[in-house]
């Protein structure tokens, strides 16, 4: 009597399974093709990363960090962290992890920014997307592994797919927020001079939303890094796999090393992308010393007894 009545049960699992089954029977060719292309891309990115001599990568990361954060000490610090990852013996694994993050974030940005723009332009698009994005972020990340596994099998492609789904909301959200927060007076002024929708986007909205979008990319990157570790559960090699193996073997030392390597990688990526996001987009002054202008109406002819 007091228990929830059986007849009120809404079986959602069944239809979802059926839909999945339908997709698998009818669209498997498509997903096979996507999987093959995705794997090619992932492997070439990984090979590129591994192919670069480690010290070259360390130097490049150091220089980029210096430029992004603005202090050479920070650049040096980031380089040292990257070297530490190597000293744990996880250089190759770190590069594998990094390649998945890079590909997932690249796709997230390429897809997410346009979606964010649509969301900022249209209130109805926003109304539809907002609950979906909320859901995507609240859903336990493991859940994404199941459809990814079914669509693409085991390996790094489904891991990238799951990472993409899990990590894309921030870049969409912050693009939307950034564009919506552009002062309406600035938009109005541009419109008054004959800017159309694209002029507005190119000249006003995207440039002014840039800091917000960069913060979104930063968050997306960090979420991708977190997810890529979980992706090891569906066969993604890399640092996550090392952690997983350590758990299975109850090997505390190894697990700690691999965990620390992930943390260092995360710090490096976070500080660099955050640095780009925080950097002043607008310099206050550029060259050329000004002459005084504010006072040039002081000399009004015909009023000799001008008392200021």
């Amino acid at each position: 009597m007091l228990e929830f009545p059986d007849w009120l049960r809404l079986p959602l699992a069944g239809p979802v399974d059926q839909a999945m089954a339908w997709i698998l029977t009818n669209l498997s060719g498509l997903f096979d093709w996507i999987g093959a292309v995705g794997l090619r891309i992932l492997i070439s990115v990984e090979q590129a990363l591994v192919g670069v001599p480690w010290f070259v990568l360390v130097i490049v990361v150091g220089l980029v960090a210096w430029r992004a954060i603005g202090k050479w000490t920070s650049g040096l610090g980031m380089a040292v962290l990257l070297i530490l990852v190597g000293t744990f013996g996880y250089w190759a694994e770190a590069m594998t992890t990094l390649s998945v993050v890079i590909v997932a974030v690249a796709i997230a940005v390429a897809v997410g920014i346009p979606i964010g723009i649509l969301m900022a332009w249209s209130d109805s698009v926003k109304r539809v997307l907002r609950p979906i994005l909320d859901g995507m972020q609240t859903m336990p990340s493991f859940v994404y592994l199941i459809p990814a596994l079914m669509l693409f099998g085991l390996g790094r492609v489904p891991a990238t797919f799951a990472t993409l789904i899990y990590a894309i909301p921030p870049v969409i959200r912050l693009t939307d927020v950034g564009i919506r927060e552009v002062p309406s007076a600035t938009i109005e002024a541009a419109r008054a001079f004959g800017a159309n929708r694209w002029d507005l986007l190119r000249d006003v909205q995207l440039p002014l939303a840039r800091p917000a979008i960069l913060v979104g990319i930063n968050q997306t990157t960090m979420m991708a890094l977190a997810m890529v570790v979980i992706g090891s559960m569906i066969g993604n090699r890399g640092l996550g796999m090392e952690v997983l193996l350590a758990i299975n073997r109850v090997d505390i030392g190894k697990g700690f090393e691999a965990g620390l390597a992930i943390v260092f990688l995360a710090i490096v990526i976070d500080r660099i992308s955050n640095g780009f996001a925080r950097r002043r987009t607008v310099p206050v002054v550029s060259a050329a010393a000004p002459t005084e202008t504010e006072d040039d109406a002081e000399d009004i002819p015909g009023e000799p007894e001008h008392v200021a």
Partner: protein
Amino acid sequence: MDAVGTRRSGRERPGGTTLTVEPNTLATSPPDGDAVVRVEGLWKVFGKNPERVFDEEYRGLSKTELQARTGCVVGIRDVSFDVRPRELFVLMGLSGSGKSTLIRTLIRLIEPTRGMLSVDGQDVAAMSTRELLEFRRRSISMVFQSYGLLPHYTVLQNSAYGLKLRGDDQKTREEKARAALATVGLTGWESYYPDSLSGGMQQRVGLARALATDPDILLMDEPFSGLDPLIRRQLQDEFVDLQDQIGKTIVFVTHDLHEALKLGDRIAIMRDGEIVQIAEPEEILSNPHDDYVRAFTRDASTAGVFTARTVMDDPEVLLYRWQGPRAALAELVHQKRDWAFMVDKKHRYLGICSRDLVDTLIKEGNKHIEAADLIRPDPVDPDVLIQDLFGLVGAGSYPLPVTDADGTLLGVIRPRSILEALHTPDPAEEASDA
């Protein structure tokens, strides 16, 4: 400051008629083929199904009643006016009176609900999106209270923005933008970003951007309201000079009566989305259409209360007739002056003695200054209303002498004093000006 007075009396106002619009009756504008901007029966209604407002049953209801009955807010109500070539037409009203909405409907930043709207003979209300963009890019420009500059563009790029949008090539853009910046006195600041400029200078950039496209018509939405009083007044003065040079047709929105009186050829006073009165500044002051306008003009009508006596100052330097040319010259040099008022022993006003005069007298070996040689602006009575001094004060570049019945010099009135007397909205502003 005195330049303003000169211009006011000197400038020929386009057309001399005063048009008063009866509330709630469609104003029939006088046929004026020359009008650059023509607005007839223009409405803007905000809300769902704005057309409902035009139903028979709602006719004649007030703004508040309409809002209560239909949920629609009437922004502009049956507004008609013409702006003539090279005229500075002021829309004035309190906030919420619809003036900012009205100026925006002129380029359809806000779409009018109903009515006729033509600019330069083009039917703006009927324009397609593409035509509207072209119209905004070529025929008309706008200056905003909040400047609306792009923070990631330099001053030069900002002032070239209108040219960029209409597709001018890089070289043309830069040339025209530089010229516009020179016009507003910002040469040398081209490569700065707006953030590093003061409010007054940012607004100059806004003005340069509007002028760079060389539009026929300028729309100005409270351009000086965001600035502190001193800078505001300075920009107003410069703007008056500028308008003399460029001679654009201007629609100017303000809530500041002093500004309206200073700049406007004609003023339209708005209330609740309607135009209550359209008239020249003098007419608004001397013949307010109703209590609303009267209340509006009350603080400016100090012009009717202030007399010459209340605004006159002591003459800072006085010369006495018994002084010879050399003594007068010495005094002028000492005081760093080109001229001074001269009085006789009984302190009676004689005239203005200039350095040119004493120089000539000294050259001729003359030992005396004759009263007949002096420049002699007509003295004014201390009880004259300063309203009536407008014309006089602009006539020459010298202050006006104030004398009593015996001819004794009581004081002098600088053009500045008159404007300041008109300009006394609050004591704080007075203080900052001193």
